[in-house]
């Protein structure tokens, strides 16, 4: 069995209670597992939160991560999306320096990537971009030479493709 490090996106439905985030974060840190990104918010049923965690490791580590997450009393369901079809979106807010010379170019890039300008000043544009993390990265790479002042990324969120609710909020 050849096992290699790979990136995994995991969705976890948890009880929407205080301390749950610490339990999950503590599980990762206490066992030396990586968290690349993590996003949490309540689901349709507000007694449940959905976490999307991007992590990496070989098969053995991923199996442990999934099992350990399941072992938490507050965890209702865990799905590793890696080997299935899913849609993935991340939101980035990017504040870029804008001068006479660069304003048009910035707007062109925003347009090409179907982003929106959400704040304008005499010296800056703030834009929102959504898409797969690779698309966000492409925008960042293009804007970097122009001058990014501040950047915030939400970390990806994912849903399985198709009609079936693979990770139904009903548990």
């Amino acid at each position, binding site marked *: 069995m050849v096992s290699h490090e790979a990136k995994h996106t995991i969705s976890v439905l948890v009880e929407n209670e205080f301390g749950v985030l*610490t339990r999950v974060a*503590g599980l990762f840190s206490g066992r030396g597992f990586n968290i690349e990104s993590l996003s949490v918010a309540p689901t349709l049923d507000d007694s449940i939160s959905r976490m999307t965690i991007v992590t990496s490791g070989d098969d053995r580590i991923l*199996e442990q991560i999934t*099992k*350990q997450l399941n072992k938490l*009393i507050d965890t209702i369901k865990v799905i590793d999306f890696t080997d299935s079809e899913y849609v993935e979106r991340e939101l980035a807010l990017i504040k870029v320096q804008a001068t006479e010379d660069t304003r048009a170019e910035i707007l062109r890039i925003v347009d090409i990537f179907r982003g929106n300008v959400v704040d304008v000043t005499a010296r800056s544009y703030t834009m929102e971009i959504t898409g797969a993390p690779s698309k966000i990265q492409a925008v960042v790479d293009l804007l970097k030479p122009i001058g990014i002042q501040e950047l915030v990324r939400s970390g990806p969120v994912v849903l399985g493709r198709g009609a079936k609710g693979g990770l139904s909020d009903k548990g």
Partner: protein
Amino acid sequence: MKRTGSQILLESLLLEGVDTVFGYPGGTVINIYNDLPDYPIKHILTRHEQAAVHAADGYARASGKVGVAIATSGPGATNTVTGIATAYMDSIPMVVITGQVPTPLIGNDAFQEADIVGMTRSITKHNYLVKDVKDLARIIKQAFYIARTGRPGPVLIDLPKDVQIASTKFVYPDSVELRGYKPTYSGNVRQVEKAAKMILAARRPVLYVGGGATASDAGKNLIEFAELIQAPVVTTLMGMAAFPTGHPLSLGMLGMHGTYYANMAVTNSDLLIAIGARFDDRVTGRIAAFAPKAKIIHIDIDPTSIKKNVRVDLPIVGELRDVIEKIGNKLRENEEQVEAFPELTAPWRSQVAAWRAQYPMSYKSSDSVIKPQYVIEKIRELTDESAIIATEVGQHQMWTAQFFNFSNPRTFLTSGGLGTMGFGLPAALGAQVACPDRQVIDISGDGSFQMNSQELATLVQFKLPVKIAILNNNFLGMVRQWQELFFDHRYSQTPLELPIDFVKLAEAYGATGLRASRPDEVEGVIRKALETPGPVLMEFKIDREENVMPMVPAGAAIDEMVLAS
């Protein structure tokens, strides 16, 4: 009718069948202690909160029931941490209740405030901070349910003082609703079928039994199963008493201080069936060389235990009794094959017997100096099979595991996972409370004993006739042994220079103290101790530099044993 939080707590304990709690009062639990005399719950006042938790742990290990401990906030709560971690590592069912500062003060660095929920998150199966008295009954119900089901473990409830005072209508829930907690009890039928096939195909099978066998009271099923397939049985420290050491199929303990024949059997087996064991590093030695020729079947109620340390060919998640019984039934479906099977593995058993004959467990006896192994053999000889033995951690613990020959489950109480010195005395105390009519003995070292020796007071106060055997070598013996063997005899900080008069110490607390300094005094001292009512401390001045052998050096394979020093 309305009840205060502290009344709800105590009534809920009664409804959970709790008749004994171990604890220590303080400012944030004073309301609970004020109500306690109104309820038929016995409270054992230990002399340290750590001891209260170990006592609840010993109570649980000996009885199989959930142990309960109470401590106040801040230092009371932090003192419980070692006890909770000990119980967590050994999967002991326990509920620990800590007081907390009033909710409006939480986070303000109030007097005797500590974030005990945060601190114990990684050493409890689950924990709770109760913020509303209306949640209290439900939380207690859940806590007991979580503690005793699935893979058992400690659960902590942090109860702020104002929640204890607040009142609400008391309704104890009939059932537990936990959508995120549903242990798998029933072994998968397909996996069971595969296991039966693998067993019949094996020629050198070994059963590797861990603490799960004790937790699930699977002792009888195990004996039946081992006899059906006539497979040799090795146990971990935690699995020790679950399978009788005197059974012809038993090879005793495996691992770092295991028997030669247990380790050889595992290393040469072609099928290792792990039953409620977790492949701890003290068991496996160098992992790459562990059971290299074997296919591994791993039966455990906790999926996270499986494939954590070793590759597993066939995992079966489930309750041990259920899975073992199912495999047995599956095997019996094919009567001819299962009857013929022991014949096929007879050469394997002869090989194992040859290893046993080659290096049996032994030690050099002496007429001039007391050998610790001799003391343990004598204690075994002079007590009956129902005696409960607790130990501390170190050389005496390993000698007890090697030489006591346990026959019955729940008679060997020892801190296996965390290795907590100071565990034995309070654990013995708790076991004696659980089993008042049985002989309870704490086998101790002079180092470990001093970590909770204050519990002599508790023994005397509650008239608990625990007998204590201190194997005194004036050393922190296990570390000294490592220093001797691997650090060129550099005994850094392991000689306990101050010779303590343990007899006088016992007497200071009002207990009886006895001492043996020569081998011919050993039997007399043990007899006298067993005949004397109340707690008795026996001090045995043992051979100072006796080592625990055999020994697998750290990082070596388990068949690369040092057999004698």
